[in-house]
């Protein structure tokens, strides 16, 4: 019995050590929740908003930055227009695009039409791209969303945006989550907005202890409403000392006017 107890305690201590290490020894990253589709009101959208949508999709649902980043798992797309022109004239190009817009679209749905040297699937001798068709499968971008990303890529590379906002696409991106839903319901409280956009991941706010951004527990005593509003619409306009530029996304496209004001009022009340 004594041996049994010793062994049991030893085993429990070992399991306890692994559990403690996993809980306290490494950073606790909370995985992003499953993506929820939104219904796009394309008719009411300006080109700037459409480009901003493309930016969001590029970094979010499209998962483009997973590979197209400085680690060079895939080519950087900071000058995608010049790249498109160059590739279309390459003898290895197997696609059918006749202009930049078509080429970019083709590269989304048929990435193997042209594979840059060194970026092909292992063993394919750069004839096959490891990139999936982004209009299908897990990414499942709609035509309008692909067009928005093309607009963003053209704009971010300093070129003229040649695409137009689609108007003949009914209920874009409406898959099973959004069918008949008419978009997300408006937020009814500032707390709900803070929870949804996980502000606490970077800021100290609403009981959360984020450290990447400024402490907002008493922000109302330090900033007026105009400043607070601006910091949400254009976060890089003014950076608090000790924090880095470019860390916070702009929320102007993700909140309606009422919601923005509700959040501003809430924060102004944090004193």
């Amino acid at each position: 019995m004594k041996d049994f107890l010793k062994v049991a305690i030893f085993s429990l201590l070992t399991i306890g050590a692994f559990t403690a290490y996993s809980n306290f020894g490494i950073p606790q990253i909370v995985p992003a929740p499953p993506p929820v589709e939104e219904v796009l009101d394309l008719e009411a959208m300006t080109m700037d908003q459409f480009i901003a949508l493309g930016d969001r999709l590029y970094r979010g649902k499209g998962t483009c930055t997973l590979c197209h980043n400085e680690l060079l798992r895939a080519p950087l797309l900071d000058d995608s227009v010049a790249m498109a022109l160059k590739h279309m004239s390459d003898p290895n190009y197997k696609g059918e695009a006749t202009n930049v817009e078509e080429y970019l679209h083709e590269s989304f749905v048929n990435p193997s039409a042209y594979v840059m040297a060194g970026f092909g699937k292992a063993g394919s001798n750069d004839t096959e791209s490891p990139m999936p068709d982004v209009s299908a499968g897990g990414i499942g971008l709609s035509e309008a969303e692909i067009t928005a990303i093309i607009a963003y890529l053209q704009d971010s590379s300093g070129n003229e945006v040649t695409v137009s906002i689609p108007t003949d696409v009914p209920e874009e991106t409406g898959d099973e989550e959004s069918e008949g839903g008419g978009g997300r319901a408006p937020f009814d409280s500032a707390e709900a907005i803070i929870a949804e956009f996980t502000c606490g991941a970077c800021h100290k706010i609403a009981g959360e202890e984020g450290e990447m951004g400024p402490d907002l527990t008493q922000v109302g005593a330090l900033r007026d409403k105009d400043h607070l509003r601006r910091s949400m619409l254009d976060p890089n306009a003014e950076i608090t000392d000790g924090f880095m530029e470019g860390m916070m996304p702009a929320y102007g496209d993700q909140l309606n006017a009422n919601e923005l004001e509700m959040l501003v009022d809430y924060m102004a009340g944090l004193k």
Partner: protein
Amino acid sequence: MQKRNSRIIMGALFTAVFALFLLPSIVPGLDASLAFADETTVNLDVDAVTYDPAPKLTEADYPKISGVNSRVVVWIVAQLHLWFGAFVLAVPIFVFIIEAIGMSTRDQRYDNMAYEFIKISITAFSLTAILGGLLVFCLVLFYPDLFNYLATIFKESMFAYALLFFVESAVLYVYYYGWHWLQGGFKKWVHLTLGLLLNASGALLMFLANAWTTFMMSPAGVDAAGVFSGDTWAAIHNFLWNPINIHRMIANVAYGGSIVGAYAAFKFLSARNKEQRAHYDWMGYNANFIAIAALLPLPFAGYYLTAEMYVYSQQMGITLMGGVFAWIFIIQAVLIGALFLSANYYLWCGMGRSEGAHRYNPYMKYIAVVLVVSFLVWFTPHTLVLTNAELKSLGGPYHAILGPLGIMPAKNTAVNLLILFTFLSFMFYRRANKIATVPWVAKGNAVQVALFTAGIINIFILGTYYGYYTNTVYKIAASIPQVLTTLVIIAISVAIDAFMYKGSKEVAPLRWGRVPPRSQYALFLLAVSFTWLMGLMGYVRSGIRQHWHVTNIFRDNSPDAYTPGLGYAANVISIATIIFMAMVIFVFWLSTVSSQKSQATGYWKEQGT
């Protein structure tokens, strides 16, 4: 002796081939799909079955039981089933090998040990079946649409699985209960063949179950909407099927060895006399040997599986290694480090069994240093999650020195050294009580030293030059020659030692049982770490599907569709491990009481003569 060994191997091969030929007739779907049916015939088949696309579920489609978290229940039951399944599949593999060694050497100790191993697995076999049934029950109860979808595609293989389970059970019972009956001459051959049949049916069972799991990760035989083409073989032979088969087969053997090692350690600690201690010490040593022999190639099998995941879907690979799961591999490094360190520690303690080992003691501290340094490199994270202030003071997310050690070339180098030096520990242990008598001892040792030196230099060059000074393609590719270098060193060293120590002189006997009790705790550490590690890897294998039941085809819309965080997962794994360990102790206890007899004097009525 040579002739007898050849006969054993030939018999084993014959049965294996026979079992493989049976496969298509057992799995009805395979028969049709393996045939080279031409497309025209298929198109003209007016009776062809049409299949529905993968269902699009809402939260309401998932049955709920108040106060029960369906995902956690399925998670724990599936994990318990997998642990027991791994154990009962592994034990017959090495029981078969040990029995064959016993037949070859005519040393009955091996036969007795093999019997004791299989005795332990008998109760575990029942528990595996019960947990398998419970898992199906839970899936039907909590995820009926998913189960229905999978059953539509895999109905033939599921039916074959059930039949095969009967075959395996029947063979196991004859194998176990007929152990003492089928002894000597031809009967022993029949018994060994039964062992092979048991392994063949067990392996087939695992391969079939693996097909269902890997289909969920890398679906095949279905279109983008999840409509099944009717080709069962395509669905079974999906992209990740074989990588998982290989990885699980090797891991099962290592795992089975570690659990049996824990059993031997438990019996050693509770032994009441020298004979028992000697027996269970010997048993523990053999179990540890099995675990380590399978553990050495395991990182390579894992690496192959991961590489195949990248080939299948770069997104899946990046989610695994660069996304939220990246930190899993730091925990994994700690666990594998624990496995290697405990295995080495056990070997070093075991060197106390013979006075002849003293001459190797001075080297152990150097081996320990290499193991610890390699472990620390493997354990070094690449991307650090930092606060703003830390980011600023570091000048970026990568530390100047630790950053380069966090990437795969450094880790590959470290793991190859970890394996090589564990092998070196083992070589010293094997030589402990012997002195080679062949005239070319000095030359043989010199060749081995040169081999190790050249190999380690090669591993370093491949890891540093190709890892840091060339592009990504070479970084990944360099791992293969690194692995080959390690394997070549091990293979040639084993061959040289086998010839060099043939007819060697015993310098001091190995005194089984003469090990400190603390060495047995290394065996427990091995078993517990292995169990926990398998749980962790099960979480990540399943988790990389993210919010999909079947990757990119069948979305998970249950309330638990989110990926749980590491801490939460660790807690679930720990609870499951404790349940598993309690059940394993129950199995051990049963095997102990089954051999005990109580004299109930005066209880039974005297029978008149």
